[in-house]
């Protein structure tokens, strides 16, 4: 089984401080998509980022991977601050790729339709400098790790189910042995049976490899299964953060209370939920 890179660093794998991002508004002025976001995730730890649509979750996720550049603030992986400029040269690119990898909601869009599962992983492995023989072996091990069999290994994305595609996307993200895996609504589109399988897989992977997870989701019930800490975002700001069981059992912020009250469950009354939401 793969082991996440040992860094010799004892502090948190991921340290984020005072992250800020604004976008220009059409009528002038700027929209603050994220502001003052900071957190730590230890090796093998897992942080959930929750909030309504438009609260800034995906903006934070994209800054972590480097898809968008923060206006200010720092992101450090294993004590090493991630630069805002793209890395130069193969070694620097690999080093950066090994810091943070991302899995999206719709794996279909991020997978090359022409490549079989095995080819997809081989491509990722070779891109990052693995020798042919070693890459072959590692690809098979990754497929096995995410529970894809030999049939799926030789299938192209269109011939895989949603859950299988998501497993492949996770395997590809793990190919470079990243220190941090960011998942943005990665199980939102899956059927509950498949969603539970993927959640179980992620749990297993973080136990076995020590990869740190950042799990972005609008679904509080899902977040609770997979995270140690939760950060609740509203209008770009963290309104509450702390150990997941505490945040869910004893929410301090009215917005967190509203989010929780709105989750349907037995005996739930939407009218009462609406009152809590309006009172926030």
């Amino acid at each position, binding site marked *: 089984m793969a082991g996440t890179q040992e860094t010799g660093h004892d502090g948190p794998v991921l340290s984020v401080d005072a992250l800020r991002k604004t976008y220009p508004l059409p009528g002038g002025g700027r929209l603050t998509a994220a502001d003052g976001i900071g957190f730590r995730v230890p090796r093998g730890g897992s942080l959930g980022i929750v909030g309504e*649509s438009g609260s800034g979750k995906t903006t934070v996720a994209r800054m972590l991977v480097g898809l968008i550049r923060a206006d200010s603030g720092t992101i450090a992986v294993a004590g090493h601050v991630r630069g805002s400029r793209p890395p130069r040269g193969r070694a620097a690119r690999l080093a950066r790729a090994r810091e943070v990898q991302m899995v999206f909601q719709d794996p279909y869009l991020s997978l090359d339709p022409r490549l079989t599962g095995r080819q997809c992983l081989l491509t990722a492995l070779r891109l990052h400098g693995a020798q042919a023989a070693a890459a072959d072996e590692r690809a098979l091990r990754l497929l096995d790790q995410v529970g894809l069999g030999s049939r799926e290994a030789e299938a192209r994305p269109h011939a895989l189910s949603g859950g299988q595609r998501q497993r492949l996307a996770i395997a590809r993200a793990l190919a470079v042995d990243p220190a941090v895996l960011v998942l943005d609504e990665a199980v939102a589109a899956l059927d509950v049976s498949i969603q539970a399988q993927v959640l179980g897989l992620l749990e297993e992977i973080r136990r076995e490899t020590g990869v740190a997870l950042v799990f972005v989701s*609008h679904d509080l*019930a899902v977040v609770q299964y997979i995270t140690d800490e939760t950060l609740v975002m509203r209008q770009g700001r963290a309104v509450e953060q702390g150990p997941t069981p505490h945040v869910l059992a004893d929410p301090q912020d009215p917005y967190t209370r509203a989010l929780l009250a709105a989750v*349907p*469950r037995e005996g739930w009354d939407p009218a009462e939920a609406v009152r809590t939401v309006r009172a926030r």
Partner: protein
Amino acid sequence: MTTTQPLLDIAGLTLELPGTARPLLAEVTLQVRTGEVLGLVGESGSGKSTTAKAALGMLPAGGRTEGRVTVDGTDVLTLRGEALRAHRARTVAMIHQDPRAALNPVRRIGDFLTERLAHAGVTDRRAARARAVELLGAVGLPDPARHVRQRPHELSGGMLQRVVIAGALAAEPRLLLADEATSALDVTTQAEILDLLRTLRAERETGMLFITHDLHLAAAYCDRVLVMYAGRIVEQQPAPALFAHPRHPYTRGLLGCSPTLGGTAADLRPVPGRPPSLAESFPGCPFAARCPEAEPECETWAPVVSPLEPEGGPVPNGPPVPAGEAACRRLPLAASVAPATHGATGASGASTASGASEASAASGAEAAR
């Protein structure tokens, strides 16, 4: 049974399309009564939307259909031309997941509503305008007079879903079909829309077929819930009973893998395998390959839906609703089949089924590989 005829009555509906290995719908039977919310749950491809479309008389062309669909006494599948258009415009209304898909982006909200009203017979322009404003108020939009002049991009997803609901109400339909109507919304907005739909139902006594993949939502919102798998109904019970005592192994599997607030990772038990496609056919019970309780006989057992004994025996002064039904050969024969052995079959049978689940769990998982 009851004296009032059901609003929606689907009886033995089977639908086969050329080039598929199994029917899209197989012997689907269900009823929605006036003022009732019937939940329809099941994983992707189980046939939920197709069932709802049947009530609109919108089954895929080129298929072979068996069975009957009646809405308010009208045989829907034989409707043609003007009668079918009137049925879709007035008697039944559908609310989909994505409100943006239902609204023309370049047209004003008011035009969308007056058009719906015209279909419903309100042709006087001034009357239609006034009614449009009224409808927007009825669905809780803050500033109806302004919203009628706005275009879809000026409103949020939750507001647009209210507009779509206003459009659905334009003709005062007897039956609402809500197909994942709140799935694309934030939980807080979802609560608002559900609150609205519940109020409207109470005021107007419409019946509702409520499709969702969220079991906890179905539990909280519906009166009765029906579970579909591979085009078949595998279980139906009043909502509280279904969630307190799910009987079919698939229902229990779905509940076991549905995230619950307050649950822990250990409680989440994935169902092995995945929902079947139309290319897969089954000589016996369609769930056999994934069922932790399957026995060799299940592979050849043709599924039949049988009545269930209510947990704890019949309810003395309860409402005249059928207690429930399920299609699993390992569940006990129900009251109507063997009236003399009521309580005994119910209790002992349930414990046999759950006891067997541990013993055969390993073989079930293997079968799914």
